[in-house]
C-alpha cells in the first residue's frame, strides 16, 4: 500500500500534469478519445508501479513516460497511424495565420515530442532527456534541429500558398 506521502504526490502530479499528458497523447495518437484513454491508462499504470518509484520528484516525468508508453501500445495495436489531417480537425481554432501545431504534427516523433515538451510544457533539457530516454546533450541538438525543420516547413507551405 503506498504511503500517504506517495499517494498525495501521485494525486498532485496527476493534477499538475494531466493536460501535458493529454497533449503528448494527442500529438502521438491524433485522436482525442484515444488520447484520453491513453492518459487514463498511464495514470493507472503509474499508480500500480508507484511503490517502485524511488524518487517522488521524478513522478511527473514518470507520468509523461507512461503516457508515451501507453501511446506506443495503442499504435502497436493499430499498426497504422490515422491520416495526418485527423490531427488538424481536433485542434482548437487558431486565429493566427500559422497553425503551428498542425505543422508540428507533421514532424517525426523524434522532433515533435521534444519541441512539445519544451515549448508547450516548459520542461527542461534534463526532464526531457529523462522522459524520452535520450542523452541530455542530444536534447538541445534535437530542439535546435526540430525548430529549424518546423520553420522550413512553415516557410515552404506559406510560399506555396502565396
Amino acid at each position, binding site marked *: 500500500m503506498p*504511503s500517504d506521502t506517495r499517494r498525495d504526490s501521485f494525486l498532485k502530479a496527476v493534477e499538475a500534469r*494531466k493536460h501535458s499528458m493529454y497533449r503528448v497523447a494527442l500529438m502521438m495518437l491524433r485522436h482525442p478519445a484515444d488520447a*484520453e484513454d491513453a492518459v487514463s491508462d498511464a495514470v493507472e499504470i503509474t499508480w500500480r508501479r508507484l511503490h*517502485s518509484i524511488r524518487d517522488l520528484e521524478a513522478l511527473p516525468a514518470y507520468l509523461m513516460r507512461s503516457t508515451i508508453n501507453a501511446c506506443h501500445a495503442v499504435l502497436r495495436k493499430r499498426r497504422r497511424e490515422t491520416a495526418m489531417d485527423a490531427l488538424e480537425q481536433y485542434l482548437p481554432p487558431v486565429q493566427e495565420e500559422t497553425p503551428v*501545431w498542425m505543422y508540428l504534427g507533421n514532424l517525426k516523433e523524434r522532433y515533435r515530442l521534444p519541441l512539445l515538451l519544451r515549448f508547450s510544457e516548459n520542461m527542461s533539457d534534463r526532464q526531457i532527456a529523462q522522459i524520452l530516454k535520450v542523452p541530455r546533450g542530444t536534447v538541445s541538438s534535437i530542439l535546435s534541429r526540430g525548430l529549424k525543420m518546423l520553420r522550413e516547413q512553415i516557410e515552404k507551405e506559406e510560399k506555396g500558398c502565396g
Partner: protein
Amino acid sequence: MDDRQLERLIFTQRPVPGPAFDLRISRQAQRLAGETQVMKKKISVLAIVVATVLSLALCGAVAELLGINLFELFGREDQRLAQLAPKAALNEVSPITMNDPKLGAGAAGINSAYYDGQSLVVAYAIRNGRYLEEFTPTQEQLAGMEQNNNPLAMALTNPETDDLIRQWNEATAAGKPFGFAEYTISPSDHTRTPEGLDLPPDSTSQLPGEDGQVFTVREYVSPLPEEARDLDVLHIEIGLFQTTHYHYFDGQQAYSRFERVDLEPMKATVWRTDAHIRRFEGQGSFAGVPFTVTVTASAAAAQVSLKAGDGVFPALPEDAWYAVHLRDGKLAEFRSLDGTSGGKDTLVFNFHGTGQAPDKLELQLRVDAEDGAELERPLKEPVFVTLTKTTP
C-alpha cells in the same frame, strides 16, 4: 519567423482538453488513491464501545485516544495486523496533550507497537489534528506571504470534509480570489532512537475516528538498520509539529505562507516480542542463470535475496521487471512490496508477512511486463523453488 516567435506560437496554440477529461482523470486518480486505503471507513460501533469501556480505566480524551489496541482496529481490514495485535501491546503510553484556539483540546500518542528484532510496526493516534477555515490576508499579511508561480490544484485529503480545498480548486481555475488556512498537528516522518538512529518509514495507513480522531499505523523498512536489530528493547520517539499553512489567490497571483511550531514528541518503549525469525535457503535457475535463494521471514515481514551463481540476471526491457511470488505451507501469499530490474548479480525483494512465522516456503521467480512489452522466450518461463528451513 524567428525561433522566439515559433516557440511562442507552440505555446499559445496548444490544445486544452475539455472539462469532461479533467473530471474523468481527477476522479480516476482519486479512486485509485483510495482503493487500497482504509481512510474512508468508519470505526464500527463495537470498536467505539470497546474504546469507551477501556477508557474508563484512564481519564478523559487521552484515555479514549489510547484505550484501544489500534492493531485490533486496523486488523478488521488487515488480517496480518490482527494477528500481530497480541504482540503489539505497550506496557505504558505517554500521551501528549495540547490546547489550541483553532484546533481545540488535542492529544497525541503512540498506542501500540510490534518489534521482533527485525521489523517494527507502530500505531499512534492524534485527536483534533486538523482544521480548515477561510482566510483573506490583510495587506500586511499579504506582504509577508511568498508568491507562487501557478496556483496548483490541490488534492482532497478527505473529500467529505475538504470543501474549502474544493472551493480553492474551483476559484483558482476560474480566476476568482479565494483563500484558506489549514491548521494541523502533524507527526514527523522521522522516528528516532535516543542513540540518534533514524528508522526509515516504509508506508502508513490511516483510519478516521469519531470526534476528530485519526489513527495511523506506520510500517518501517524491514529489516531495520543493523543498529536497531535484535535488541531487547527499542526506545522510539516521533516528532510532532503544529503547522499552519495559509493559501491565498487574488485572482491572478497565488501566495502562501507556512508556519511550524515543534511540540513534545510522542515516545514509547517497545519490548521485543518472542516472535520467530526464520531463515530458508534454496536453489534454482532462471533463463539459464543458476542462482541461490536466501529468505529471512517473520510474521511481520520477509526478505528474499537471489544471488546469481555466475554472471548476472539478464537485463530487461524498460517496461518489464523481475517479480517474486512467495507463499507459505498454508498457501498464504506474502504481499510483495517491490519489483526490480535485472543486469545485476543480486536481486532483493521485500514482503509484508502473513501474520504468522512460516514453517514452509516456496517461491516463484518470473518477469512481469506491461502490455505490449516484448520478452525473449527464456524470460517468459517462470521458475519455482521450494525452500529449506535452516533455523528451528
